[in-house]
């Protein structure tokens, strides 16, 4: 079930909230039970066929976790068996087809299986692996309560697209948390803003991006740039919008989730971008792959190898296609380059140039990410560099600018920390006694949130273009 669906907004969500808050706070297990039941229903909405994979993942994690308790024998074997069993469905569902296709390209004649990828499998598999690794390392104790571990894996706000949560942060809250009106209210505001990001901005810009990437021989230089920038913005508003909704819902149930974005398009280097984009995934790879491989506290050659491994896996995690592999390697090369080649020179450049450098590289990277094939990526990138079959400019490019003029106008400042800047100014002014600022701070976000919810609902009614991009991962 998508957050941006009528069934979720005007059915599932109010039902979940009502059932949750009808149970007195002192019955914590009851409230957790409501969340668990609603989470399983949320996942099963996409088909009961999805549930066995999710439940098997929970069962393996729970059993392996218990066997990994300190003092038990064979912990190493149990850990790797647990990790292997959790990774197996991911590998089967996501990569079998890709592997078969490539083996067939080498001359074999394998049947390509048509397996439907269970939604969110990449996310809940990584959560399960992090749980097992943390128990194995002794960072957290194993969870004995199966329902709690299942709720950690299946908690519906973050089940499909993250953020990737650590049990060390989430588990204790299941036993002891407080839901307060200010938190619930702030969560609801954030949810509405996230919904608007997705429905009002990302989907419209996505239409422009889709047109450009499908232009083929009509692709002009202008259209290639507009399409790639539209996709860059679409991806941010889509994914960060979803994350805002997830974090808002978490807050509303007293279960705060980790931040996943920190204004990534304000980065001044590729390395900084990855500290601001999909933060929980970057941390996961850092903690469970990069550092165990030796991180950067090793020889240069080994460090480069580590970077290569991490980014190859990052690329493959996002999708089973060569475009994702190349995209991962692209970032490996950029990060290695910034570390060993041009990082020093970059830091001496004026800040606007560093921003431009980062934005250009990010934009080129998203072309690789979005393209359906390496050939298409090559076509769009070469068009951006001036080699376009459709010439310098085209009517299609102008249409994309005119048709989505309002989205462009709102999207560009919305990727910048304007909201932070504005609220700081208002807070400063409020502290100096301004009643207007106090009223604006108290009412502004809430009134805006209600308006955005209404606008988003109307847009949802009139639109069929509403699938979240990160579902495919």
């Amino acid at each position: 079930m998508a957050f941006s669906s009528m069934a979720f907004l005007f059915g599932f969500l109010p039902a979940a909230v009502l059932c949750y808050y009808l149970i007195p706070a002192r019955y914590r297990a009851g409230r957790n039970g409501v969340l668990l039941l609603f989470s399983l229903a949320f996942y099963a909405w996409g088909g009961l066929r999805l549930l066995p994979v999710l439940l098997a993942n929970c069962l393996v994690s729970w059993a392996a976790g218990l066997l990994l308790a300190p003092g038990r024998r064979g912990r190493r074997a149990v850990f790797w068996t647990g990790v292997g069993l959790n990774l197996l469905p991911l590998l089967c569902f996501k990569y079998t087809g890709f592997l078969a296709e490539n083996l067939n390209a080498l001359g074999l004649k394998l049947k390509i299986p048509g397996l439907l990828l269970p939604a969110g499998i990449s996310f809940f598999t990584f959560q399960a692996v992090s749980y097992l690794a943390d128990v194995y390392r002794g960072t957290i104790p194993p969870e004995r309560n199966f329902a709690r571990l299942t709720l950690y894996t299946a908690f519906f706000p973050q089940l499909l697209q993250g953020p990737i949560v650590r049990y060390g942060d989430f588990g204790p809250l299941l036993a002891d948390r407080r839901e307060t009106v200010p938190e619930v209210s702030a969560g609801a505001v954030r949810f509405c803003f996230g919904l608007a990001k997705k429905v009002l901005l990302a989907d419209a810009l996505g239409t422009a991006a889709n047109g450009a990437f499908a232009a083929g021989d009509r692709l002009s230089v202008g259209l290639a740039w507009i399409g790639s920038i539209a996709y860059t913005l679409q991806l941010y508003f889509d994914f960060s919008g979803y994350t805002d909704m997830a974090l808002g819902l978490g807050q509303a149930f007293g279960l705060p989730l980790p931040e996943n974005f920190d204004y990534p398009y304000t980065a001044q280097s590729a390395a900084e971008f990855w500290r601001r984009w999909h933060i929980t995934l970057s941390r996961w790879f850092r903690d469970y792959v990069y550092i165990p491989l030796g991180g950067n506290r090793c020889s240069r050659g080994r460090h480069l190898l580590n970077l290569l491994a991490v980014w190859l896996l990052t690329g493959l995690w996002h999708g089973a296609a060569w475009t994702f592999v190349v995209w991962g390697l692209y970032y490996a090369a950029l990060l290695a380059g910034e570390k060993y080649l041009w990082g020093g020179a970059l830091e001496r450049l004026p800040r606007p140039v560093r921003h431009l450098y980062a934005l250009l590289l990010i934009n080129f990277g998203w072309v690789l990410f979005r393209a359906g094939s390496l050939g298409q990526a090559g076509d769009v990138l070469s068009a951006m560099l001036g080699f376009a079959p459709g010439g310098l400019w085209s009517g299609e490019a102008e249409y994309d600018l005119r048709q989505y003029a309002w989205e462009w106008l709102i999207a560009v400042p919305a990727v910048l920390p304007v909201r932070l800047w504005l609220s700081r100014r208002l807070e400063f002014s409020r502290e100096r006694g301004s009643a207007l600022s106090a009223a604006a701070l108290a009412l502004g976000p809430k009134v805006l949130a209600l308006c955005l919810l209404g606008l988003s609902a109307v847009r949802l009614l009139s639109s069929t273009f509403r699938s979240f991009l990160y579902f495919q991962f």
Partner: protein
Amino acid sequence: MEKFSQRAFLALLLAALLAVPGGTALWSRKDTAAYYENRTLAQFPSLTAEGLWDGGLGGDFEDWYSDHVPGRTTLLKLDTAAQLNLLRRPAVNEVVPAEGVLLPLLPYEEREAGEYAALAAEAAEPFARLSEWVRAGGGTFCYVGIPEQRAYFRDRYPAYLSAHETEISAGDAAYAQAMAERGVNFLDMGAVYNRQGRPENYYSAVDHHYSYYGAYAAYRAILDRLAAEGWNLPVLTEEDLDFTELPNPYIATRNRKLYNLWPNGERAVIGVQKNPVPFTRYDNGELSDRPLFVLPEEDYLPTTYNLYMGGDFGETVLETDRPDLPDALIFGDSFTNALETLLYASFNETRILDLRHYDGMSLEDYIGRYRPEVVLCIQNDTFYYLSGGNNAVWEEP
């Protein structure tokens, strides 16, 4: 204030989230069609094991729920009004308001001009067979190609939008040439309208059809062409008709997609015969008392292009009981409707088929059974390269 605003906000939000399902349960379950969208609303999904297993139930429920939200039409109308008047988008609901007319938003992708010759040859072949067969039976076949409104007003598109210029120029030309090369009597109304200076009032500004004036010009061109073939048929001249503008609001296909919000005062026109040729009418085999122009009972009630002959039927027969005149068969799309109100007056019996809806027998068998002396195919140019429907005129043995 902060505390109050938080509680008030949460109360309002929850009320909004609950109002929609409550309203849907109370009021909206019985609606079956969306008038402005011209489609049937999704039905409440039935609970099946398969739907539960593969998630089809969830998707079907979402479709149903989205279609039955209370006030849906009002909300979408408001949204359209905002897109049109406030945000002033170049295209709203895939309709382009451009220089006094409403045009469809067309995809930029188009066939290459060079592709049309082969396609036209393929498309013309069945009509050539039909034409030969009609001629062999002593009759006359004429194919009347009529530009659709977007083709007629193609120069009104903003320069940055696609008018499908290649389709209209190269596609229509290749089609006409392919027909001519195969001996098909093809009347290109686009060329006729061009020779007449493409008068603005020949086409609707807000509908994809021509106006009654455009239909009348086509009627005269058809009779001229039949006269050139040797048919001496009675003609309804302009003096024989009263061209009357109806008082009713005209809900046209393009403006309908905009919830009729695009301001225009266009009214439908009918040509009332001063000395009407009486007829007996049959629709789909049943005796019918439908008149040529089906008008609303009150002036304030809206009307549509369907006022001409009452819309599309699989088969309509108009008998005028004048055995000295030839019989005719007309088949084609909705552009025939306005023409039928004129053409029938020139024949003894006029049979009208829309092969998109008629499935009684093949066209070949139909002509074999009723032996019409004049066979007319009337189609708009956006259908030239489609398969099936009124292009399925000859089945290969």
